[in-house]
């Protein structure tokens, strides 16, 4: 499924996906690759934290409601560790207060599932400062 290698990481920024939903981890990476990003997907915040890929990760697509460490918890933890990876939250929760909270806490974007590929691209470009 993945297209061939031989691309420089500069032109294909690494996006990390953290979502406990298997269907998201199945479908989103392929879309991101079509949008010319490199992708790594993690089923939990804890796994992302132990992966040690902070320095290369240019943007984090983060689910909010996850058992154990939530998306907000991970955002907090990254801040505590001095990591400033731009975060775009992805969630099915249609709650305005959640959206407001996320943006207040410094999220660079907030997408409601299901989201279109153009909305995703727009959010990523904004978060990466590529617009």
């Amino acid at each position: 499924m993945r297209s061939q290698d031989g691309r420089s990481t500069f032109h294909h920024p690494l996006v990390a996906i953290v979502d406990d939903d298997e269907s998201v981890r199945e479908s989103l990476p392929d879309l991101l690759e079509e949008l010319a990003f490199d992708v790594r997907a993690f089923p939990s915040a804890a796994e992302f934290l132990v992966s040690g890929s902070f320095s290369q990760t240019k943007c984090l697509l983060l689910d909010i409601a996850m058992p154990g460490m939530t998306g907000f918890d991970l955002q907090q933890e990254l801040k505590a560790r001095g990591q400033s990876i731009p975060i775009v939250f992805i969630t099915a929760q249609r709650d305005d207060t959640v959206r407001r909270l996320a943006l207040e806490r410094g999220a660079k974007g907030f997408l409601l599932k299901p989201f279109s590929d153009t909305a995703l691209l727009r959010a990523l470009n904004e978060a990466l400062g590529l617009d």
Partner: protein
Amino acid sequence: MTETGNLQNDIPRETSIALGEASLESILCTEELYRRPSRPPHHEKENRALVALVSALADSPTTILQALARTILEITQADSAGRGLLATEDDGRPYEKEFIRKDGTPVVVGGALFETGGNEGVAFVLELREQKRAEEARERLRQAQAEIEHMTRVMTMGQIAASIAHEVNQPLSGIVTNASTCLRMLDANPPNLEGARETARRTIRDGHRASEVIMRLRALFSKKSVSFERFDLNEAAKEVIALSASELQRNRVILQLDLAADLPPVWGDRIQIEQVILNLLKNGCDAMRNVDDRPRELLIKTERDEEGGALLSVKDKGVGVVPQIEQKLFEAFYTTKGDGMGIGLSVSRSIIESHHGRLWAVRNEGPGSTFLFSIPSSTNT
């Protein structure tokens, strides 16, 4: 006019409406009003049995008052029932007054408008004697509960719709993402045909998933006549879990299953039992809504009980139930939640009782509560 116990016969015929005929809204509204009493109950320890509804749908509150006045004059010792005796409160809160019936026993007559400034309302008569268990009154309540049970499936359309929405959101999101990817792969130079096929296959698969979930949820929520059959309680539990997976996930609930391998098959209406399991599951989930300092664990366990039947328990790690309201939880319409009508547990209990089983709750040693029900196995009915 009879002097003996049967209050139902005392109500003047033209003003009395059997609970089965009374508009369901009036029943529900009355119970709604009783959940928010405007004043401390007169008799906190006594059972207040709703014996009769004298429902008056009118284009003026006067009709309600007239129905009440007639009722008061005919069944109580009051010899006048002027307007001043029973003026309804302006803000639509229920007004009730205690009278003495002709046989000397106390009775409460009252009325309320459904909404301030509205015209529709309800008048009611309450029996105050704690021991009173008029068979007709219980029968009326049972009929009303059956109606309400049906209405629960219909009246809480909002909740049903939300449930379905939650469960199909996941496959729908998959569809949008996969199809978007498919189009881009076809637009690539050269087109990525294998990728397009794979994403199209996933899209179709997710479409089927969504359709199946909707079908199974509709089956779960539809009203049908009760039909008993032999079934496996473990399978029923798994079905309910599969149909609430997304909502549990959304609420970060960690589900643990401990299903007995030697569980005897049970005899009952599978859909009804699944509704009870769903009710307990949702309650457990709600109980942990504000829990953040510990994992939101929900344990569903089945086991053989002492009488050889099947026992299912749902244990949460929520805030628990204060002892004083433990019993009230099962009372019709009692609820601590702002939304629904709190009918769930009361209806669940009557479903279980109609299966010759029991439904009860216990406090956990740690945080939270456990709700349990047992129903006889199909061999000993």
